[in-house]
């Protein structure tokens, strides 16, 4: 339960908490301001977390919808960003679980400007150069995205919060509803797995096998 002192402390320290308190008082402008402040940050994390732009956009809107619906019950018990990303994490986890139940094939990062077009991808696949072909700068993003997609959902989210949101272990623990030692373990495994996935590229500059599908099989977003 959040005490009044805690709430006031967060309200004094965090301007976004103050905005959220205005949202609680039905101030629409404050809500709009929060959307403007956080939409790009949320989208960055969620796009890499779920691997699809369209789905990430839907999730961002769903996050804000949840925020709006929960406004009357809002009591500041953490930084606003921590609370917001907790909602985002829960939604992303649910979404990923639903997807795996539907046994969907994950076509990672479609719609990205750095991805190859299908025809080009096909040409590369038929060139006989894969997977030992040299990776150029335009493909580096695809390689890294594929490596991220190879992580488990929770490892990926912890990694993204740490990298993109520069959250501390304590904040990640609050956001993902874990203990701090669990976050420590999760992040170390995430980074070891990331290193393993990227090792071929780091050592020889060659395209790792894990990114072959992404480069060759880009399709429509949904």
């Amino acid at each position: 339960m959040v005490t009044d002192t805690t709430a006031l402390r967060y309200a004094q320290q965090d301007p976004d908490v103050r905005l959220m308190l205005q949202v609680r008082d039905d101030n629409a402008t404050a809500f709009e301001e929060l959307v403007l402040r956080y939409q790009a940050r949320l989208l960055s994390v969620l796009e890499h977390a779920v691997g699809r732009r369209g789905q990430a956009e839907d999730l961002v809107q769903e996050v804000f919808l949840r925020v709006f619906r929960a406004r009357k019950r809002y009591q500041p018990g953490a930084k606003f960003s921590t609370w917001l990303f907790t909602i985002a994490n829960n939604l992303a986890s649910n979404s990923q679980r639903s997807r795996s139940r539907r046994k969907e094939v994950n076509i990672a990062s479609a719609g990205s400007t750095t991805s190859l077009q299908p025809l080009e991808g096909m040409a590369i696949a038929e060139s006989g150069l894969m997977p030992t072909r040299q990776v150029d700068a335009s493909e580096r993003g695809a390689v890294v995205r594929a490596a991220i997609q190879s992580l488990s959902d929770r490892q990926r989210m912890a990694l993204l919060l740490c990298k993109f949101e520069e959250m501390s272990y304590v904040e990640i623990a609050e956001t993902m509803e874990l203990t701090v030692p669990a976050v420590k373990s999760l992040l170390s495994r995430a980074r070891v797995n990331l290193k393993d996935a990227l090792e071929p590229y780091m050592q020889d500059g060659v395209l790792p096998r894990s990114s072959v599908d992404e480069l060759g099989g880009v399709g429509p977003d949904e």
Partner: protein
Amino acid sequence: MNNRPLNAPQFSEREDLTVEEELVAYLDGELDGAAAILVERRISEDRKYRQQLQKLQHAWELLDVLPTSEVSEDFAQSTVDMVVVSAQQAVEEAGLIAPRKHLLKKMLLGVTLCLGCVLGYLLLMFYFESDNRYLVQDLEVIENMDVYAHIGSMQFLKALQGVGYFSRDEVASGRESQAMLSVDELELHVSQMNASDKQQMQSQYERFLALEEADRQALRQLQSQLRKDADVAHLNDVVERYSDWLKVLPANERYELLSLDREARLERVRELIARQEEQAIEHAGRLQLARADVPVLVRWVTEILRRDEVEILAKLPPKARKRFDQMTGLEMQRRSFLLRAMVQADSRFKEQDIRRLVEKVSGKTRLLLEKAEKRGLEARQKVLKEWVLKVVDGRQQAYVTRLRRSVGAKELQRFVKEELTLEQRRTLENLSQDEIKQRILRWYWQAHGGKMTTPLREPVRKPRDDRPAIIQ
């Protein structure tokens, strides 16, 4: 938020990863001083350990190639719109259950709904009847808990009343009645609430219960003192007005205010109100006057001009006086010039002049002047000065436009070619195109105005003797 989930990693899983955990925590700056020193010592001594660190670091740096997502301009708007639509739907769904296609579904839904309603009703009844005693006792505190928390004490409330801005001589009837309701009446009031109000009340009640006991007690004490006060109606009005005022304060100012102690807070309240009133006056000066008030204002200011003309002319600086004397045949310009000189002397509009104007203007304009009145004569003079200047500028601009239309282009070309002096031509070199046109026009009428009896081709108007010269 801090509940540990069931799927958190087990300790045994983590033991295998001690080295990586250590390195990752070191890279993330999460190790304390002593642990970091141990890691650094091992890095310098152990080549394999060092390589492992470098690989982890390199992999981490590669994440920098990932772009941050760009959001389209209309995404935020669509998000807000979506939330609004969803909120509306939620409201509609709460009151209206959409018809279902299949009868079975309908029946199942109906049964579920009935059960839900009964259950909900029983829960609400249980909630409102078992806890109602407590809720009703604290009802007023709960309803006003946010604003009471902001006020804090009776002394502060009385001090607020003294600020003036929050107190009114007359308050609406019934302001005191709520405070005088008996417990039974309050219970009836709660039982008659609709579902939405009850839900809101429940949420408020939960927030109230979440407070520390000392905080709850302080709120109750304030409410009790308020009830007993002989001036309860006025004080309730102050509470409401202060609450409304707080709501429109920017969030940072509101929280800065609430973090101050009583004396400092009161002082800050006064400062903020003074600033708001100042801004309101500036805003009033910038407002567009109601169309019907423009001629009223012009007539009013012209009367003052006629009355004080000799005095104004006497006080003109020599250079300005010379310019005025050169404006022969240009009645409108002469009047505008004098008006400008008059309003720039701020004290020209006297109390009785302003009172005369207030009687003649529309309700909206009167309200603005009355608001400014609270800040004194000077504030009203400032607002009037802005209005008069705006009207003068507007009319002068219209006059110049009409003048320009009344002189043919060929005539102006001839004037430039044949009559401009060398000095005048040099002056034009430093002016913009619009300024050149205006200046030529002015020189033209200075040169020819005196010779013309009717310089403008004015539209034919029905003569009205009561209209002052300036608008004829």
